[in-house]
């Protein structure tokens, strides 16, 4: 056999290592990938179109269902965008609580990532450990919003309810336990020779390429670019917290693994600070006609009841214009571009999905590499197909 011959194989959409319904068409020569073409869209549910037909309040639950591992981040991005459009200033307590919840989301998302990524690479027990710790986060979600995943807890102008009474105790308990167990994770993976061989020098992308491919989040920081929107353009009071931006140097899957572990630690730091410094105050801004009045008032005050009724039935009218609000979600820059035509429904909601944009760089990461590295590359991008396809 002197002539070279390529064959085309199909990976996914039903493949356990593609984290959902991602399909990759691979052209391989022997074991080397010559060409990779990700095919997405199997989970497209038209969320952006749906949101156009809803009142601003009623479009919120759709955001949970995009990146279902980070519902609070999605809620936060959407609410901040609407608040910026309506010029609503939220109370300090809301800001601190939101930061705490968004960081819990990051812990949740990174833990699931860690478990599934390690599982893809053959370390099965990690999944069981990380899901055990993830339960603690989900318990806090349940205590806050009544649901474990589709919380819709962060609302326009504040929160759905006040924080539960034992919120601080629960969060402190979580930060203590996860911090301890991070050590266990590291003993299992960080110096594990199999894990290192599967990840070090795999799925490498340089800083220039990462920027050129519009990558954000851990994908960009793993290549040594110290860009984090929480520091660069602080939102929701992140300037009050003391934390470091984790970043890598080599831009390979191993660096991104270390970086995400460090991000969990920094998130726990922020959670602790948020609990220590949580100010007292209302859990919702007082903006009659735009922000729903607290439920206690609706039951006893005539005026609040009227506003409640009006907001639920006809919503509020937003001024003509467009705003963009980006937040640092666990996967990268999650942006909401909301255009208003002056009516009570958004004219267009564009979600800038970090996972979709990061996934576009997959061919760059795997072409010329081994077939088995494709699994590692997909895992290290950290995709959630609900968000990629929307």
């Amino acid at each position, binding site marked *: 056999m002197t002539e070279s011959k390529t064959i085309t194989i199909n990976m996914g959409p039903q493949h356990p290592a593609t984290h959902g319904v991602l399909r990759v068409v691979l052209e391989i020569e022997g074991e080397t990938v010559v060409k990779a073409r990700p095919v*997405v*869209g199997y989970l*497209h549910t*038209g969320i*952006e*179109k*749906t949101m156009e*037909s809803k009142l601003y309040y009623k479009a919120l639950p759709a955001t949970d269902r995009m990146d279902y591992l980070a519902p609070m981040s999605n809620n936060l991005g959407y609410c901040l965008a609407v608040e*910026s*459009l309506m*010029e609503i200033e939220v109370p300090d307590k809301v800001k601190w609580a939101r930061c705490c919840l968004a960081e819990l989301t990051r812990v949740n998302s990174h833990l699931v990532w860690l478990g599934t990524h390690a599982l893809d690479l053959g370390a099965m027990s990690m999944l069981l450990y990380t899901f055990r710790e993830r339960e603690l986060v989900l318990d806090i979600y349940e205590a806050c919003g009544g649901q474990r995943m589709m919380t819709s807890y962060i609302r326009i102008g504040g929160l759905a309810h006040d924080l539960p009474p034992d919120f601080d105790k629960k969060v402190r308990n979580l930060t203590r336990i996860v911090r301890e167990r991070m050590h266990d994770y590291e003993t299992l993976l960080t110096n594990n020779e199999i894990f290192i061989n599967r990840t070090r020098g795999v799925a490498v992308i340089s800083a220039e*390429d990462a*920027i*050129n*491919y*519009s*990558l*954000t989040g851990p994908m960009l920081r793993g290549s040594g*670019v110290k*860009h984090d929107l929480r520091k*660069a*353009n602080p939102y929701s009071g992140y300037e009050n917290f003391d934390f470091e931006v984790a970043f890598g140097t080599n831009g390979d899957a191993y660096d991104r693994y270390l970086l995400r572990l460090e991000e969990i630690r920094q998130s726990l730091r922020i959670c602790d600070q948020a609990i220590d410094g949580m100010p007292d105050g209302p859990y919702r801004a007082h903006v009659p006609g735009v922000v729903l009045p607290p439920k206690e008032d609706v039951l006893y005050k005539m005026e609040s009841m009227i506003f409640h009724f009006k907001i639920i039935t006809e919503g509020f009218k937003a001024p003509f*214009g*467009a*705003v*963009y609000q*980006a937040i640092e979600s666990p996967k990268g*820059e999650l*942006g909401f*571009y909301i*255009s208003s*035509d002056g009516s009570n429904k958004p*004219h*267009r909601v*564009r979600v*800038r999905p970090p996972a*979709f*944009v990061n*996934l*576009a*760089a997959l061919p*760059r990461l795997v072409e010329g590499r081994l077939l088995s590295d494709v699994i590692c590359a997909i895992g290290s991008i950290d995709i959630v197909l609900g968000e990629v*396809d*929307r």
Partner: protein
Amino acid sequence: MTGMEEKVRSFMKANFADAIIREDDFRQQQSFYVKAEALVDICRALYDEPELDVRLLADITSLDWHGHPAADEGRFEVVYNLYSLNHKYRFFLKVRLPANAPRIATLTDLWNGANWMEREVWDMMGIEFVGHPDLTKILTPDELEGHPLRRDFPLTWEQPQFSWNKDNPPEVMK
């Protein structure tokens, strides 16, 4: 970042005075409405200008002003979301395109990241990016006709496999 707003404005005015239609700073977010034919040149100049260092194309998206007075300037609007990592500054370039055969030059020569973003805009809104290496559908099924995010695409019309309303499509939204 203070001062960046002024820097971007003066750079745009100095180099592309003819191409700027107007500037907008709704909610302190700077955006320039520019002529479609000048877009690639503007982006290239912004990319190469070391003072501004606009290296990250954060997003490309599109709007449809069908049935709205704003459509007088052109039915479709393409929004380019640019970010300078060094200066931590974000601003927007906006282009209006006509209802008939909306098309604009691609940015894939400058940014690889533009590839999927432009494919999505093509798929969902039907705006053609001239010179794009692979302008194919990305999110919707191959059988689906039309571009779902256009305002005149019915919200609940499922085609073609779930044809409960095939012969009786609902009224066009709005």
